[in-house]
């Protein structure tokens, strides 16, 4: 397997982009990545998108986006694993370059979520859950994560305030991200007084509905060195699945797929968790970040709430988590998120993260997750 580097990144402002279609959003973002990479030829495209079919009635994104980018007949694929579609796209691109199948691969993620009503969007997102035995009973994603929160709070004493602190921290980080959907700070009080979505989760515990895209250009590390580009390698990649339905999990308050995927990625990279300088994780809901920090091994099982309270995962903490603002402040255009995590880490490892810069960052870990943890993808990035 060849070493794989990321030589270009692109991301545009995320939010409710009424004037822009999915095609425009993706194309503009991809062009930024291509320009950043300074390449002409692209050998292959992989796009992550959860549900263009339900959101805009459009499938066959491989053809559509290759066409819009003016790059036909480039081979292209659209991959899907719910909210980890972006991370999965990165993994597929990585495999193509590592295997020698392709040299330059464009990996993108995109989601256009605001062309439907809130109820329709909730329904579309709900297709990541078990349709016949969860969604049939009226469950939503906030509802599923709320049940995980209740189990976690009941067993470990995690508090409502600790959940709120995750959102506050991520907004604090996101207030320094000009591309974020919500680049402003919030308070614990604001979270605790925001409207209930699925008890105990409130609207400010939940990542938003967002339009947006992110893109990276992959190539063999040798090619990157020859091009005299700052070389950021994908040093490790791991993926794992778990049961679809939350009720089928052995432990309702634990993310086993993240735990396994992280182990695989670290093993491939030959690194220990403590060697990571920053983490971009899947805070679709505040409780998710708490559970992810436990599953990654940043903290002991059950101590994720305490950890955020103690500042372990703050920008200046021992393990900075979500310096970009996370899904909460940056936004969560579903298929784009996993790729945006890579964009942030690459910028950080290049020293290009502006106000958000984690000093001396050399290694980063991105964790992207689908559903209630039915799929997890973890990537490890290292600067040379």
């Amino acid at each position: 397997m060849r070493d794989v580097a990321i030589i270009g990144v692109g991301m545009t402002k995320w939010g409710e982009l009424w004037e822009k279609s999915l095609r425009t959003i993706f194309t503009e973002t991809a062009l930024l990545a291509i320009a950043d990479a300074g390449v002409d030829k692209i050998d292959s495209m992989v796009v992550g998108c959860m549900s263009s079919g339900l959101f805009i009635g459009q499938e066959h994104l491989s053809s559509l986006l290759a066409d819009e980018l003016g790059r036909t007949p480039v081979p292209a694929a659209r991959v899907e694993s719910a909210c980890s579609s972006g991370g999965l796209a990165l993994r597929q691109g990585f495999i193509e370059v590592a295997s020698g199948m392709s040299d330059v691969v464009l990996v993108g993620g995109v989601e256009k979520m605001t062309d439907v009503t809130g109820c329709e969007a909730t329904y579309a997102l709900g297709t990541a859950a078990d349709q016949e035995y969860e969604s049939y009973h009226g469950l939503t994603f906030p509802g599923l994560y709320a049940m995980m929160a209740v189990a976690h709070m009941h067993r470990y004493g995690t508090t409502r305030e600790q959940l709120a602190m995750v959102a506050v921290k991520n907004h604090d980080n996101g207030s320094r991200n000009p591309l974020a959907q919500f680049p402003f700070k919030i308070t614990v009080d604001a979270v605790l007084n925001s409207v209930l979505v699925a008890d105990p989760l409130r609207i400010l515990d939940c990542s938003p509905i967002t339009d947006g895209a992110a893109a990276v250009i992959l190539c063999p590390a040798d090619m990157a060195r020859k091009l005299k580009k700052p070389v950021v390698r994908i040093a490790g990649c791991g993926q794992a699945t778990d049961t679809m339905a939350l009720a089928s999990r052995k432990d309702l308050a634990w993310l086993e797929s993240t735990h396994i995927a992280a182990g695989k990625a670290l093993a491939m990279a030959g690194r220990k968790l403590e060697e990571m300088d920053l983490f971009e994780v899947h805070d679709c809901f505040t409780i998710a970040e708490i559970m992810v920090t436990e599953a990654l091994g940043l903290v002991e099982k059950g101590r994720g709430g305490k950890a955020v309270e103690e500042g372990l995962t703050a920008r200046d903490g021992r393990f900075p988590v979500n310096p970009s603002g996370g899904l909460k402040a940056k936004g969560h255009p579903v298929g784009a998120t996993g790729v945006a995590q890579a964009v942030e880490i690459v910028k950080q490892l290049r020293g290009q993260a502006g106000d958000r810069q984690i000093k001396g960052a050399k290694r980063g870990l991105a964790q992207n997750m689908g559903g209630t943890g039915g799929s997890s993808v973890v990537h490890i990035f290292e600067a040379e």
Partner: protein
Amino acid sequence: MPTPSRYWREIPQRYRMEAGKCKACGFIAFPPRVVCPACGAREFIPAKLADGGKLLTYTIIRVPPQPFEDQAPYAVGIAELDDGVKLTAQVVDCDFADIKVGLRVRLEFRKLSEDGEAGVIYYGYKFVPE
């Protein structure tokens, strides 16, 4: 929302709680499956779920999906039935304040939703406090 055929296919599970018990290891699959997730075996014998258990977790859905718009707020929970199977369903016929982890519940036949006023009515099971 299921189509008529998707709804009809799950009737034995939704109306009668029919499950499959792995012949090799005893794992109870609800709904029944082709492959046992515990041991990989492929032979099952018919089984019926226990009709009660206790809540492991729950929430109150306040922002509903279609077609549950008119029903919100409603409670949903995961219960561990007396046979060890974990099941997801709404929790009805009680005040939200009375729902707690550990609450004993039994199953009752209720209407889940419908495909509008002219469409198919979707029935199934819900939890009712014992």
